C-alpha cells in the first residue's frame, strides 16, 4: 500500500493541471491543488488517506469526483466473473489432462503436451488475444471485436473470447504443474500398496494419484487467480471491457491518485485472501502441507 501510494506520486504528471486542461491559469491550478489536498506534504497526505481507509472511505476520483469505492463496486464484478470462470474452466480441463498424461507416461504424448504448453506459456497474452481477435472476430465474425453489454445472455457474446484466452493460458500452466506432481506421485511406494489393496479404479485415482498430487496445483491456482488480476489490465484494454483493469489503466494515465491507490489496495487484499484460501485448501487435501 505504501508502495502504491509512493509510486503513483513519483510518476510524472499533475492531476490538478490535467483536470483543468492545458490552457488553465497557474492560480486556478494552485487553488484546485489546495482544494484536493495535494499541496500538503506526502506524509500528511498518507496519514489522511490511511485514516480514510479505516472509515471505509477510499476517497473520490480526482478526475470526475466519483467515489472510488463505488467505481470499484461498479467495475469489479465483471472482472471477477470472467476471472472466476476462466479459473474454473481451467481447473476442470487441467485435472484430467495433467492426470491422464502423467499417469500414462507415453513418451510421445508427453513431448506433444510439453511442447504445446511451453509455446502457450511463452507467448504473451496480448499477442494470443490479438491473434484470437483476428481469427474469431475479424475473419469468422464469431465474436464482437470489442465492447460490452451487461445484460445476461447477451454479455456472454462479448465475454467468451477473453475467457477462452485466459482459460487456455491457465490450462497450460496448471496442467504442467499437475503433470509434474502426478509423475512424482506415480513413482511413490504407496502407489504399490494401493494396487495391492485392490482398491477400485476411481478410488485409486483419487486417493493414490490425484489427491497426493493436488496440493501444489491448488496453491498455484490461488496464486494464478491473483496474477490474473494483473493480466486483466491488458486483456480488458484489448477487448474494451469495462472491468476494473481498464479502470486502473485510465486512472494511471490521468494521475488519478485515489483511484489507483484504491484499486491497488483491493488487488492487494484479494491476493492475500486468495493465497490464504489456497493454503487452507491445500492443507485440507494433504496434511503434510505446512501453513
Amino acid at each position, binding site marked *: 500500500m505504501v508502495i502504491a501510494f509512493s509510486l503513483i506520486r513519483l510518476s510524472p504528471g499533475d492531476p490538478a493541471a490535467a483536470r483543468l486542461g492545458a490552457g488553465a491559469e497557474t492560480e486556478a491550478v494552485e487553488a484546485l491543488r489546495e482544494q484536493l489536498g495535494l499541496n500538503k506534504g506526502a506524509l500528511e497526505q498518507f496519514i489522511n488517506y490511511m485514516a480514510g481507509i479505516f472509515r471505509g472511505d477510499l476517497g473520490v476520483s480526482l478526475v470526475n469526483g466519483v467515489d472510488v469505492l463505488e467505481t470499484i463496486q461498479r467495475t469489479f464484478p465483471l472482472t471477477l466473473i470472467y476471472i472466476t470462470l476462466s479459473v474454473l474452466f481451467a481447473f476442470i480441463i487441467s485435472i484430467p489432462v495433467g492426470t491422464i498424461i502423467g499417469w500414462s507416461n507415453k513418451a510421445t504424448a508427453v513431448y506433444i503436451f510439453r511442447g504445446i504448453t511451453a509455446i502457450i506459456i511463452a507467448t504473451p497474452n496480448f499477442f494470443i488475444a490479438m491473434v484470437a481477435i483476428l481469427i474469431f472476430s475479424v475473419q469468422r465474425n464469431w465474436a464482437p471485436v470489442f465492447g460490452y453489454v451487461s445484460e445476461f445472455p447477451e454479455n456472454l457474446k462479448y465475454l467468451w473470447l477473453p475467457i477462452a484466452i485466459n482459460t487456455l493460458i491457465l490450462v497450460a500452466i496448471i496442467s504442467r504443474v499437475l503433470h509434474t506432481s502426478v509423475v512424482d506421485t*506415480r513413482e*511413490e*511406494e*504407496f*502407489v*504399490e*500398496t*494401493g*494396487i*495391492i*489393496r*485392490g*482398491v*477400485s479404479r476411481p*478410488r485409486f485415482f483419487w*486417493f*493414490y494419484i490425484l*489427491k*497426493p498430487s493436488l496440493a501444489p496445483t491448488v496453491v498455484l491456482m490461488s496464486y494464478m487467480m491473483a496474477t490474473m488480476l494483473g493480466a486483466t489490465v491488458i486483456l480488458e484494454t484489448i477487448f474494451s471491457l469495462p472491468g476494473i483493469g481498464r479502470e486502473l489503466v485510465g486512472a494511471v494515465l490521468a494521475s488519478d491518485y485515489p483511484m489507483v491507490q484504491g484499486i491497488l489496495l483491493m488487488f492487494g487484499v484479494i491476493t492475500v485472501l486468495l493465497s490464504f484460501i489456497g493454503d487452507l485448501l491445500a492443507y485440507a*487435501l*494433504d*496434511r*503434510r502441507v505446512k501453513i
Partner: protein
Amino acid sequence: MSNALVQIDSLRIDVKVTRTRRLTIVNSATFDVEPGQLLGLIGESGSGKTMLCRSLVGTLYRRGAYIQSGSLTFGGTDLVNASPKDWRDIRGKRIGYIPQSALAGPNPVMTIGAQMAEAIKQGEKMDNSYVRARALELLEIVQIRRPEIVLKQYPYELSGGMKQRVMIACAIAREPQLIVADEPTTGLDVTVQAEIMELLRQIRRDLNTSIILVSHDLPLINEVCDDIVIMHAGATVEKIPSEQIEKTRHPYTQALYNSRIDLVEPRGKLITINGQPPTVGDWPTGCRFAARCDYAQPQCSADVEIPLATVGTKHVSACIRQAEIWGK
C-alpha cells in the same frame, strides 16, 4: 512335485528401457518357499531382489518390467500368465506385501483407519463395524498402543517404526499364506529393527505364514530366517539353511559372510569384496562373480550357465569349483 507354496524356476525378468532396448534384471532365479517357512533373500543392490518381490505381487509392469521366461507358481496358480482376476484373488488376500521403505509405504493423504479399511476389504463390501473392529484387532497384533487414536491419525504423525507396524498390520489383514517383506527395516534404527523382526517371527508362528524377507544385511537374515537364498547379479547362487551359513559352498556367500563387520576384531581392517558388482543387464558370461572371486579360473567364465547343484540337505549352490575348493 513338492508341496512348496511358491515355486520359482529359472525366472527371467526384463525391463523395457526404450522402445527397442531391453535390460535383463533378473536372469535366473530358482528357489521354492515351503508353507510356514521364513526365507531370507539376500544380495547387493541391483541384484534383482526388489524386482523378484514385485513379480510376486504383479506390479512389475509399473516399472516397465515383465517376466521374459521361466516359471513362477503360487499355491498351484501360474503367476506368469495370471489374469487380472487371478491377481485380485491373490494379491492382498493370499499374498501380503510390506513395502521397501517404511517412510513412504503408507499413503500420506489418508488416515491410518481408511488405509487399513482398504487392506481389510480388498475391494469387497463389508460391514463398517466389522472393519473397524478388525482394524483395532490388527493394530493390537502389531503392538500399537492406543489404536483408537492411531486410526484417526495421518502417517506423518507416526514414527517410522509405527508406520512399518501399520504396514505389517495391512499386510496380514487377510491372513495371507505368504508375506513378501521387501527390506522392511530400511531407515529404521537398530532397536526398532529388532522389534519389527521379532514381530515378523511372531506372525509367522501365530498364522503359520510363509515370509520372504528381503535384505542386504546378512547377520540380520542369518539371525531370523530358517533358510537363506543368496542372489548375485540377477541370479540365485545359493540356498542354504541359516545354521549352515558358515559351511557355505559358494565363494560369493563366503565373501559376504566374511565382510560382516561383527566378525572383525575391534579396530581391525574391514574385509570387503573386491571390485564392483557387474552392471545391471551387462552381465559377464558364465559365473558372474568370477571377476571378483579369489578362486576364479578361466573355465568359470566360459559361456555356459552355472547350474545350481545340490550339495547337502536343503542346500544348493551354483559354483563349478565347489568340489575342488571345499572337497567332497
